[in-house]
């Protein structure tokens, strides 16, 4: 396609550039009305980072209360509000939006598209997610944050046991942000299936697009049951329905099935896009093509499907039946097979490469070395009888933080360090990145490692205090110290993000010598992404350009 060289077309989309050139009021107007996938992506990520800081402060307050046995720092009610809000925030307003945001920014660029399939739906999705988050937090400001846990088991959420308006704010907020998530999922699917550059068959899409595609299908299937459950609990509370009210013929058990039918796929919604990001970063920084692309794509699909059939492994202790327990244990164990395939393929990609431990790869190394442990403790918990002992204990808290921080967070940081130059036109400081990494790595092991021990010693989750006679003090103190070691790492990260906008080394279009389409356009990309529509012959279009003598398509 021919292009006309027009200065408007090359307008940069950085926040600082906008503000500097047009004044803050004009920039604010521009950003609040935009339907550009890149601006929306940036707003998603910024929103998530703000909520990450809030969720982190909540965690620190809880750890302060648990430092000494029988401490009286915040008391039971505030503590119970904090763990409810911490879990809710991290899952709904940090984890999902940050991944959706990165997907929003990068996918059209990686696919060679000019925008998402439905730009207005995209903007709607962001704003409604943000409003959902604000609504949930409004309850805090009015002094009535929910005290129900992020899993909100009935009948504790019924009006009989909980007159707290916070629960209504919570249900409405999640319901609303869930609509945004479904919109995002539809948009990703339509974009990946319908907006690819000429020549980019489904077998040639970047691996990140595969994971975003399957994650989107998971969102489409998992969020509606949650939405239904939230509507039901609101009906119970506001209109006197009895869906979960046992005294009037409802079922407490029903909530658990509905919630976990969402709640388990949610874990994979939070990890699949990260699998995609590290699958982009590891090859570039190992200087090798991703090993076994087809098997990796098939494994992603397998994980997405199997994860829809394992939800009741959160319910081994509710007395289902031996047969059901066995089914859910077996299905959960089977997830480890495709996950193992992925892991071995990453290792094979590194093996024989030329590995550079710059910040994106450093975080991938963190991801690989730590996510493995979370996965392995998951295998233990999938063995149902072991779960009879350790479900709802601190062992589980250690396990899933290991998955979500060792997995999701390390992988997401890898993605952010990788793509920051593309988004801002500036490089992040490598020195600060190394401080960020090592403080997080060490602090994280120190925080969540001891939790496995306190769980084995019988410490249940969601307790605001414990007796000195129970011998949990030492392990809780280690955990709190670990949280304090982690804290500065986030501050360094945020400082790096902001300071590098002005002080960072200017980035060239392709600073990492990478291979996917987003690196062909300028850094930051112009508002229309590409001056000419790229044409693709292989999975690594830039490899073909850089190695015309040995193009990729002859091997695919």
């Amino acid at each position: 396609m021919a292009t006309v060289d027009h200065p408007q077309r090359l307008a940069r989309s950085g926040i600082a550039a906008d503000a500097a050139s047009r004044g803050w009021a004009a920039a604010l107007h521009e950003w609040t009305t935009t339907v550009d996938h890149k601006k929306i992506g940036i707003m998603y990520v910024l929103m998530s980072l703000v909520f990450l800081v809030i969720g982190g402060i909540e965690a620190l307050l809880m750890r302060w209360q648990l430092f000494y046995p029988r401490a009286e720092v915040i008391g039971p009610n505030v503590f119970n509000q904090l763990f409810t809000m911490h879990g809710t925030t991290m899952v709904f307003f940090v984890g999902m939006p940050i991944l959706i945001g990165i997907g929003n920014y990068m996918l059209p660029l990686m696919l060679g598209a000019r925008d998402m399939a439905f730009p207005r739906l995209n903007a709607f999705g962001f704003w409604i997610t943000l409003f959902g988050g604000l609504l949930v937090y409004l309850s805090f400001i009015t002094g009535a944050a929910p005290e129900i846990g992020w899993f909100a088991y009935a009948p504790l959420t019924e009006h009989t046991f909980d007159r707290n308006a916070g629960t209504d704010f919570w249900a409405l907020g999640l319901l609303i942000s869930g609509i945004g998530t479904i919109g995002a999922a539809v948009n990703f699917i339509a974009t990946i299936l319908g907006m690819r550059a000429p020549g980019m068959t489904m077998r040639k899409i970047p691996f990140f697009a595969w994971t975003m595609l399957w994650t989107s299908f998971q969102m489409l299937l998992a969020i509606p049951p949650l939405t239904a459950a939230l509507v039901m609990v609101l009906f119970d509370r506001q209109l006197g329905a009895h869906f979960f009210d046992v005294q009037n013929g409802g079922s407490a058990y029903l909530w658990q099935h509905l919630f976990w039918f969402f709640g388990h796929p949610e874990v994979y919604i939070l990890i699949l896009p990260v699998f995609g990001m590290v699958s982009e970063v590891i090859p570039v920084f190992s200087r090798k093509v991703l090993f076994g692309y087809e098997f990796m794509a098939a494994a992603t699909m397998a994980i997405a499907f199997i994860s829809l059939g394992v939800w009741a492994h959160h319910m081994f202790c509710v007395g289902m039946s031996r047969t059901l327990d066995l089914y859910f244990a077996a299905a959960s164990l089977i997830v480890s097979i495709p996950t193992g395939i992925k892991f071995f393929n990453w290792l094979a990609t590194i093996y024989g490469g030329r590995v550079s431990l710059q910040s994106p790869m450093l975080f991938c190394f963190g991801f690989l070395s730590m996510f493995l442990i979370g996965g392995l403790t998951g295998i233990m918990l999938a063995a149902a009888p072991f779960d009879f002992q350790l479900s709802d204990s601190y062992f589980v808290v250690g396990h899933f933080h290991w998955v979500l921080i060792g997995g999701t967070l390390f992988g997401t940081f890898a993605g952010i360090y990788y793509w920051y130059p593309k988004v801002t036109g500036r490089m992040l400081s490598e020195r600060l990145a190394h401080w960020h990494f090592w403080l997080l790595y060490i602090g994280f092991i120190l925080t969540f490692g001891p939790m496995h021990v306190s769980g084995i010693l019988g410490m249940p989750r969601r307790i605001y205090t414990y007796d000195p006679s129970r011998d949990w003090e030492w392990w809780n103190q280690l955990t709190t110290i670990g949280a304090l070691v982690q804290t500065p790492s986030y501050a360094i990260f945020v400082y790096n993000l902001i300071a590098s906008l002005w002080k960072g080394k200017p980035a060239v279009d392709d600073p990492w010598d990478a291979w996917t389409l987003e690196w062909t356009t300028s850094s930051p990309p112009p508002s229309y992404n590409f001056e000419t529509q790229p044409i693709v012959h292989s999975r690594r279009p830039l490899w073909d350009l850089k190695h015309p003598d040995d193009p990729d398509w002859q091997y695919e």
Partner: protein
Amino acid sequence: MDANGLSMLLAAVEGRMADVSIFSPASPQAGWIVDLAILALAIIGIIFLVVEGILFYSVWRFRRAKNDAPGEPAQVYGSEPIEIAWTAAPTMIVFFLVLVTTRTLWQVEAAPVQPREGDQALFVTVIGHQWWWEYRYDSYDGRKLDFITANELHMPVGDGETQRPVHLTLQSGDVCHSFWVPRLGGKVDLIPGRSNLLAFETEQPGLYLGQCAEYCGAQHANMMLRVVAETPAEFEAWLANETAPAVEDPAVAEGKATFLANSCVNCHRVSGTAAQGDGAPDLTHLMSRETIAAGQVPNSRSNLRKWVHDPHTIKPGVLMPAFGLSTEEENQIVEYLRTLK
């Protein structure tokens, strides 16, 4: 590491922590789970060492050096035999894990059992409340029992010749709770509208600690469990005391009158009196318990006094309000309670 941390570690080595750890089972049920856990730990331990080993080796061995020749390393796109191999290997491991999981699952999950004469089995219905445990003793050794107690479960120990299992029927009076005494077995939830079963036995007399494991509201943290396992003779003596009527002591008649004249009777029960509430712990033999407030504090005169005055100083958020009785009334009630042996 400070001195306290060091002593904790030493204590762990010496087995002091064996008091709570799931790895020091005191019942066959908990033991079977430990067998499975150790097997699973061994398997994932080997996987961990192998995979982390390959990772660290690869990153170290293939790290970029300054004097590397320019150009890219050999591009390897994949290999079907290798992919099949590392699909098959985890599949076999998973198959093995499913088999051993099944075996343990069939061992530990309780099947319904009917009380029979001479089988020395104890049947108790456990009802979880916000935030305490109600124990309704149904039968023992084929004998029908009919008394209610709270927060401390007594059970007889078995010996080489006779097993003395306890069969618990778990129900909830309000929200979801979970019964978890790690050394005696895995947890089972108490869910409104359902009856769950849990059975275990032990041959080691002693006190086993646990607590509610399912978040159940403000005082979830202080819903402790105490299981007292004692010799059959001790258990019979305890049974005899619990089944006897409440002690009548004329010296505390005023306290009894105050107790019966106030709201206490709406929730608490003292058998043989007008107090027949069932929303709060049965107090008929209150002084046979070592603790109050669901295992949170010792059952001493001063703690009872504090509790009657304002239970929220011990357990903030508890459903029993502070009634604002006069000091004299409070003292009378405490003296009365102290006679309920």
